[in-house]
């Protein structure tokens, strides 16, 4: 029973019933793992059949100082479900009811244990679909997807899970329950919770966005003489304003492994892409023509278009069997999850290939070409300990290469315990300290999924990053402030008078880089929205921005346009103590650590001064969004705790 006293077990049994509390050795052993290599036995397992019982359970565990880890299908590749400090596993899989499907307002309300594939099945008869499609959608749950911020092949067009969750019921590690929406508190804490891997709370109910199914879908298989050609094709496609529903890619090794296994009829080539276009028949016909032209320009060797549903299934057969093709070779397949800016992909992949060849590792390489996310699949035998150590070392090196190319150690699988040490390689000391503060504020006793995400020795291992020279006056002002400061910018809507001390970001008004290879724009926070829109227009580029008077930073932190949050890929900010943080970048996906973009989104300067933003660009005009009326954000219990932890002096108003 470990940490669980007989008295506590009796109390828990009283809440959930005797049969739902397990302390037998078999249950403990079988709840000790997920899809990763981590294996730690908990002290107890509780089957949660009713969400209403959860707050009481959490409060009880909190009162007894018992750590807990929530899980459902446990398909996680990073060891997020391992109970590193022992404690209790809360099995949320029985919370699997779809509560509401509203096709008029396009949303569905589900319990967190609903399997993603089951929601898709339920939506199908109504002609709707749920956009995020993790590869394991047949078994993974929506709660798990949200808490890991999972994405999938369709991410390039539709975005990751966080972009599709409208509301969530969450139980904080202290037992308080909250309902979060993107704009009902200081900062987009709903977005912060996405990808937090259960370290900040437990989600019991979700309201997710659903979309009408496209009337037509067409699939294409194209082969290229090199990886670089294939990546260039995707960049050119985006440049023409074509956003495929998904772009999946394989390298030569994978193609031949798949072909050996499935005989799917894939032509032999250095790189193979599977495109899928969706929309109206007319749209697809237009895009297809352009696609063919672009592929030919980039030296495509074969261009195969599926003419019917059967052919489409046949084109996908090989891609879907890629994992199986590897799984038959050895007992274990370790799936990596590095992400780099798309432009860097060929170079990073070349280095990885060299390492795999040198180390004589049997591996296949799959990647979502559109967003720079790749999955090396390394086969090994878990029973052979030296083999495991070797594979872990190789994977570490691969992920380090990603970071060296401006990427991240996790695009969609999360950090858990397996990539925890690499966080110190990716982030600076101040950025990791902020993440640690977020955890400490939310869960001071370190009970919710403890010891995950943040490296234990980050204070020694993480690099110290100085703020750029241009920010030094701001740093000094923050550090020396005696009175509370109000962050403002051009056309700021925050009311100030003569007595208010102001920290103005007006001088930070440069557009730093328009990157047409990765389709990103990096701007300082004080750039006017209208200026940015105009400049981009001259380049025939577009951003998801409303027609607003203020600055980009003001729009982002003011919380008047929550629709822009999914399109903010990275930021730099100064915290109230003057420390400088950097998160994300030209990355389409980043599941490493807490989503700091979402912490500052709509925070109205309460957590820090956003100095720089990196945004996603489009080659065609996205749907116009409207700015909402500005209102001062109100704190809830969680945001108050965060504010106290991040700004203990209360220096930012």
């Amino acid at each position, binding site marked *: 029973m470990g940490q669980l006293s007989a008295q506590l077990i009796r109390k828990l049994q009283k809440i959930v019933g005797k049969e739902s509390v397990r302390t037998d050795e*078999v249950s403990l052993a079988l709840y000790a793992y997920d899809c990763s290599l981590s294996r730690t036995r908990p002290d107890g397992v509780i089957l949660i059949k009713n969400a209403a019982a959860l707050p009481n359970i959490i409060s009880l565990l909190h009162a007894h100082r018992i750590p807990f880890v929530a899980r459902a299908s446990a398909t996680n590749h990073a060891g997020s479900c391992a109970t590193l400090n022992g404690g209790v596993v809360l099995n949320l899989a029985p919370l*699997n009811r779809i509560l509401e499907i509203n096709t008029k307002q396009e949303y569905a309300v589900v319990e967190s244990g609903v399997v993603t594939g089951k929601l898709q099945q339920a939506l199908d008869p109504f002609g709707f679909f749920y956009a995020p499609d993790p590869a394991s959608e047949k*078994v993974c749950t929506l709660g798990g997807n949200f808490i890991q911020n999972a994405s999938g092949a369709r991410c390039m067009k539709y975005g990751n899970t966080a972009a599709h969750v409208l509301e969530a019921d969450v139980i904080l590690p202290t037992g308080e329950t909250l309902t979060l929406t993107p704009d009902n508190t200081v900062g987009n804490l709903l977005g912060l919770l996405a990808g937090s891997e259960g370290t900040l709370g437990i989600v019991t109910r979700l309201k997710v966005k659903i979309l009408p199914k496209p009337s037509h879908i067409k699939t294409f298989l194209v082969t290229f003489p090199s990886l670089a050609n294939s990546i260039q094709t995707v960049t050119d496609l985006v440049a023409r304003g074509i956003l495929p529903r998904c772009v999946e890619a394989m390298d030569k090794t994978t193609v031949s492994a798949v072909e050996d296994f499935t005989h799917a009829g894939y032509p032999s080539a250095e790189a193979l892409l599977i495109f899928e276009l969706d929309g109206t028949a007319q749209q697809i016909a237009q895009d297809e023509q352009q696609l063919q032209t672009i592929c030919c320009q980039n030296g495509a060797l074969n261009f195969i278009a599926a003419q019917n549903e059967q052919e489409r299934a046949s084109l996908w057969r090989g891609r879907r069997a890629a994992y*199986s093709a590897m799984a038959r070779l050895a007992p274990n397949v370790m799936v990596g999850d590095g992400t780099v800016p798309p432009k860097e992909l060929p170079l990073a992949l070349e280095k990885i290939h060299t390492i795999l060849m040198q180390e004589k590792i049997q591996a296949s390489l799959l990647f979502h070409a559109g967003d720079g996310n790749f999955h090396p699949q390394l086969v090994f035998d878990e029973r052979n300990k030296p083999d495991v150590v070797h594979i872990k070392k190789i994977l570490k090196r691969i992920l380090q290469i990603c970071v060296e190319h401006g990427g991240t150690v996790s695009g969609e699988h999360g950090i858990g315990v397996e990539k925890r040490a690499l966080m110190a390689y990716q982030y600076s000391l101040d950025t990791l300290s902020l993440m640690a503060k977020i955890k400490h504020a939310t869960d001071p006793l370190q009970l919710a999924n403890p010891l995950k995400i943040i490296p234990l020795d980050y204070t020694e291992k993480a690099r110290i990053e100085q703020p750029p020279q241009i920010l030094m006056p701001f740093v000094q002002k923050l550090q020396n402030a005696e009175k509370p400061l109000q962050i403002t910018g051009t056309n700021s809507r925050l009311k100030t008078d003569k007595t208010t001390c102001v920290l103005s970001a007006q001088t930070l008004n440069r557009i730093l880089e328009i990157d047409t290879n990765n389709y990103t724009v990096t701007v300082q926070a004080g750039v006017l929205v209208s200026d940015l829109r105009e400049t981009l227009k001259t380049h025939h580029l577009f951003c998801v921005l409303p027609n607003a008077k203020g600055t980009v930073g003001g729009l982002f932190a003011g919380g008047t346009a929550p629709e822009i949050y999914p399109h903010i890929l990275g930021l730099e900010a100064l915290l109230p103590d003057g420390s400088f943080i950097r998160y994300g970048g030209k990355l389409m996906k980043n599941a490493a650590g807490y989503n700091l973009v979402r912490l500052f989104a709509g925070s109205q300067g309460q957590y820090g001064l956003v100095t720089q933003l990196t945004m996603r660009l489009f080659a065609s005009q996205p749907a116009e969004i409207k700015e909402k009326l500005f209102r001062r954000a109100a704190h809830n219990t969680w945001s108050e705790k965060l504010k106290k932890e991040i700004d203990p002096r209360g220096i930012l108003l």
Partner: protein
Amino acid sequence: MNDCSFRDIDVTHPKNHLTSVKTDFGVRSFYSSVSFCNRCGCCAQDCPTYLFSQDETLSPRGRNQAARLLVEQKLSPQKNKKELLRLINSCTICGRCTQVCAGKIPTAKHVLEMRRLLGVRVLPSTLQKGLELRFAYPHLFNCLVKFFLVLRLCGFIKLLRFSGLSYATGFGWLGKADTLLPPKIGKRENIKITTTPSLIYIPSLETFYFQPSVFQKTLQTVSRSFQPSVWENTPTGRFEFVFGNVRKARVQLKKLITRHRNLPTKNLPVLTDSIDAYIFLKEAAPSLFEEYPNWQQKAEQFAACVRFVTDFLPSGKEFITAAKPVCLDKGALFSHKSQPIQDAAQLLHSSFAENFVQFTYDADMPAFAYSFVKGNFSEQLIPPLLQTVKENKIQTVVTLSGWNKMEWERALKKQKINAKVLHISELNR
């Protein structure tokens, strides 16, 4: 495949222990086979016991991990027997997990191995003796079955049950079998003996004794184009394989194969009317001889001759008849995607078109098939399945084995659902 127990396993060299299993990617040792489970969890949503319980311990992944921990001696079979028995006895051996698994891990076979290793893969002793008697003295066995029915007519079985004696060790199965079996043995026409057969028909035990109409229809179906020879009371080793005595299963299979090989015409088709017998003879039997290449080759040749009723049934409205709408029961051990199941679905689809109701995956539970093997968990799968039958106003349930037919009839009667159950051969006009 050999007998062994957990005591035999040398933990320092677990790969070397005796048991091995046949997988889609070749023969692997038991330890190696369970180790190929990558814990991806893709099997869970296809496992009826997991769907019901949402409990990891009742998922295929959980069962494979438990097997692995047992072999690695990280779980004590003695201390955890109760929980382990719950885990392995709940498995319905339907094989759905293997179908969806990327690595094709044969979890159902692992469960059977675990049952054997934990000493629970055995028939109740009385039933075992009855079966042995059947093989040794078929006539005496026939007399005993009749005697049993007379006893039941006299109310002896009820008396036994009310007195509590049926709960005594070795008699537990009696109550179950009593409610399951039909009230009387139907009349069967005399079997014509042919000296130059062109097909061998091995009726399953349940069909031969308790489902004479199925037996008769199957015989009729093949008689149109073949000269069948019925090998009644022929032990195939299936019960032994499923319940654990692998050596006996091997001996009986050898006898069957030799008898088949000694026929004047070589490679005659061998017909079976039970989906479980088909899967055993076709897929499991050759794996019993993996250490005897010569016999394995013979078993594979024999397996190639094995046919199911669906191979001989004509399709179309003029040949096939049943009250509509119809549905297909996919209850089978080890595989619900075996060729006969697919053929049967195809046949029903072509004959009944929209009147053939295909259940959604959740409702299509493998609830019926050899309840002796499956343990009591399958009882929980029955109500939703019956509910689906009721909701879809199904008039005919088509099964692929006589035993499933008996189980279905019993369940429908209990729930007072007015639907008929037919073995697929009974659809033939």
